[in-house]
């Protein structure tokens, strides 16, 4: 239950400029995910919020109370910020039982014994591990240790919960279960959560908003749907989405009103309203662009369906994977991927018909790498 505001946060390790002018507002009750590849600064940002790292520049407030003021060398102690942190490695104390691990913080705060019992057992019950209260961490499985770490973090009912890649040490199946648990936890407690991960599926399924990090800066802050449908640049587009987005090289011409894009799939015209006008778009000259096309938005049929924007394509390879099939296709010089639900078999070099939806494509300025044409978020069946 707290609102966090980060302003102009800079962090250096020696001469290495690890966090660059981070500005981020996390609203009360949000589930904010810090997403990005390894080394982009997301864990450092989390540690700055927790107080384990001190930024050389910037300000941070929690519910309008100043906790970081780098100009005055003021850094509030972690314990006084009303937050708790779940480490990637769990950091459970091996010489204490599960109960003692979870009760540690409460004992330090000199909470009375019966209250400790109540809070700890409540926390263990929420994470469904109350029967392990007297076990030691090395007697538990990875998933159980994970739950203990989370139980420890929520026992003191913190206003802010920080999680550092908590699911990365779990196997795939357990990860899916734990994602559901965390989402429920968020709904039940209403605590503000800041979550760090490199896994975009986690980010998309659990967050209210995502902050996408790139090389120490925040590239984009948006809802999961917003980031998925309209990634702000080529790197973001490439990072989000599984299988990855299709990039098709094309040539664009913008006359101030309409943008015409010539691609191996055909020529498309995009109206003024769909363009992102705060970006650099060269006027009245042909320029290189890249079209972004999500694999699931490519419809394949064996016969010509007679719809607009249908073209012939060649099957390069197909990969049936049980619940879905990935099909590698070529059109002229361009190659791309389509995703079909269910098991479908295609022969190599088979000719198929591919229907595209240009209104749901992104267009990027190749030189700047930035998004210049929005994709429509939803569409009704039958639309272009």
């Amino acid at each position, binding site marked *: 239950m707290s609102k966090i505001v980060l302003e102009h946060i800079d962090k250096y390790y020696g001469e290495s400029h*690890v966090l660059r002018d981070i500005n981020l507002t996390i609203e009360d009750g949000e589930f904010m995910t810090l997403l990005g590849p390894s080394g982009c600064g997301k864990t450092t940002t989390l540690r700055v919020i927790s107080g*384990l790292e001190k930024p050389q520049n910037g300000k941070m407030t929690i519910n309008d109370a100043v906790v970081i003021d780098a*100009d005055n060398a003021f850094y509030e102690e972690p314990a006084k910020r009303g*937050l*708790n*942190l779940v480490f990637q490695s769990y950091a459970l104390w091996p*010489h204490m039982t599960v109960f003692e691990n979870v009760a540690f913080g409460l004992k*330090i705060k000199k909470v009375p014994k019966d209250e400790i019992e109540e809070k700890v057992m409540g926390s263990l019950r929420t994470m469904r591990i109350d029967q392990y209260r007297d076990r030691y961490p090395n007697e538990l499985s990875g998933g159980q240790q994970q739950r203990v770490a989370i139980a420890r973090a929520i026992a003191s009912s913190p206003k802010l919960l920080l999680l550092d890649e908590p699911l990365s040490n779990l196997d795939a199946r357990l990860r899916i279960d734990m994602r559901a648990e965390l989402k429920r936890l968020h709904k039940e407690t209403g605590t503000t959560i800041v979550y760090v991960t490199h896994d975009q599926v986690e980010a998309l399924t659990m967050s209210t908003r995502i902050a996408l990090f790139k090389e*120490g800066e925040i590239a984009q802050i948006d809802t999961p749907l917003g980031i998925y449908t309209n990634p702000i640049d080529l790197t973001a587009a490439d990072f989000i989405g599984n299988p990855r987005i299709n990039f098709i090289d094309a040539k664009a011409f913008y006359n101030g009103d309409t943008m015409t894009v010539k691609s191996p799939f055909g020529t498309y015209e995009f109206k003024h309203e769909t363009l992102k006008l705060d970006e650099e778009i060269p006027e009245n000259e042909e320029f290189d662009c890249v079209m972004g096309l999500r694999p699931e938005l490519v419809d394949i049929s064996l016969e010509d369906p007679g719809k607009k924007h249908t073209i012939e394509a060649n099957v390069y390879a197909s990969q049936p994977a049980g619940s879905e099939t990935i099909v590698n296709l070529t059109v002229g010089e361009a190659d791309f991927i389509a995703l079909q639900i269910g098991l479908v078999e295609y022969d190599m070099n088979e000719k198929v018909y591919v229907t595209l939806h240009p209104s749901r494509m992104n267009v990027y300025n190749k030189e700047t790498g930035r998004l210049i044409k929005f994709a429509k978020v939803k569409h009704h069946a039958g639309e272009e």
Partner: protein
Amino acid sequence: MAKTKSKQPRKPLTKERLKNQIRNVVGNPFNMIVFFSLLILFCLIIIPLLNMIQNSFVVAKAELRSIPGAKIGDYTLYYWKYLLASPLTKTIFWEPLVHSLLIGALTTVISVPVGALIAWLMVRSDIPGKRVISSLILIPYMIPSWCKAMSWLSVFRNSRSGSLGLLTGLGIDIPDWLAYGPIAIVLVMCMHYYAFSYIMVSGALRSINSELEEMGEIQGASKTQILAHITLPLVLPSILSATIMTISKSIGTYGVAANLGNRIGYYVLATRMKEFINDSPKGVGYAMSILMISLAAVTILVNQKLIGTRKSYATIGGKGTRSNLIPLGGAKWPLMIFLIIFLFVSMFLPLFVLVMESFQIMPGAGYGADNLTLYAWIGEIENAPSELYAQNGLFKNSEFGRACLNTAKLSIIASIITSFCGQFLGYITTRGRGKWYGKLTEQLIFIPYLMPGVAFSAIYFSMFSQPRLGGLIPSLYGTFTLILLVSIVKHFPFASRSGQSNMLQIAIELEEAASIEGASFWKRIAKIVIPLAKNGFLSGFLLTFISIAKELDLIAILMTPANYTLSFLSFEYSKEAMPQVADAICIVIIVFILVCNRIANRLGGDVSKSM
């Protein structure tokens, strides 16, 4: 990640900022501990060293008459000239230097290959009896080197020493050059320092991916080719390390050289230096000590240069750590016999000879029942079977009792203090890894390791044989405290390495989690660090304890009769005509060490870490 290099922003200094910065530094107990540790290390290591360097240039009272027109405290080159440019220089410097270098070189040339060979046999070959051999192979190392010197004497001693050795007693004429001097010293030290190269090379061999050798075999290389072109280059860093360590330890050796060299006038740097420090001019002794330290520093720097960051070729990746043993074929039995002989000569024989000699009435007169007595252990001088006996038997000997007490006092107190300090220093170096204070602490702690034991105690002798700080610290000349202090500081490197590996096991996140839960620095130490560090502490403590208990070289200069430890008592007795009681003390020490080592192993301690 593209990390651009940029300068950190400079902040304007305001009152608020200054106040907070001071509070951040002073309010963190860790910073205070680092500060005081650095201060103490500086006072215990740098200042005494500088003090001794200074003393080698300053006129002392005892030389007032030798330096015309001088007053106490004047600057002078007298001592250095005495050492390096006087008519005595050949005897007191060049000869001992050449002897030290010779011994260092020969010991290294013999013991490093021997140790490496044994390591290879134990790790890589299919030699039989590995279980038994590996439990025995480090026992020779645990027998103090001066004890081995004594058992050498008991085999080879001739009439020059006032009593006969085993061989002479059997009628075999043993010449001086075999019984004493460089050959004796080198052979005894080889039987001791082989352990360095054994431990380092076997460690390196174990970490090498066996697939590298298997690949050579598939390509058609013969066993010798694989050994020469694949295995050897990969273990080269560890061999180099062992070489440098052996050289520097053997150049600075005291006990063995004193036992085997003094009686025929064969001196090394350490034995000469002790003479100067115990008598005069002390300044010359200090000058010698500085030269010895420089020599050791040069060898270690050469080691760093040659090895650099390639500390070992521990191969990364791949799964092949299952080692397929290399069959020895026809060479198996000869090599096995070699190993057996080696163990026999370096472990069984010395122990046997020492034990038997302690029971003899006349050394060298054989082991017949008429020559055996329990006198050395429990006899009283009135009932001595021979008037050549100078002391009571061990357990009726008050000097022995006092030496036991002194050794116990010294070992227990010193090892407790140094082990605690070691844990703290280990904490500072691990938590401060990469930071300036972590590196500085590591470097300061490394300095006592650089110095030969005698040179190190010379530093303390020079510093504390006068009152310091205007009387705050009285003169510690001849006191137990000085011996204690020297033992503590000289073992800092080992204790802090043990502390380091202990602390590395405790992930910093365990402390971070505690600090987020609200635990203060001291609470974290008490509730998290100490409970987890307990076991590592115990085994490190025991190993330090053993090392201090058998120490001779380090404390020889500082010894006075009231403070005799067991090792020094034995050393003194061994200089006399009748060595039996000295042998008995040796045995007591050896048994004690073996027992303690066993306990330490049970608790997870590893003697190879003491290197």
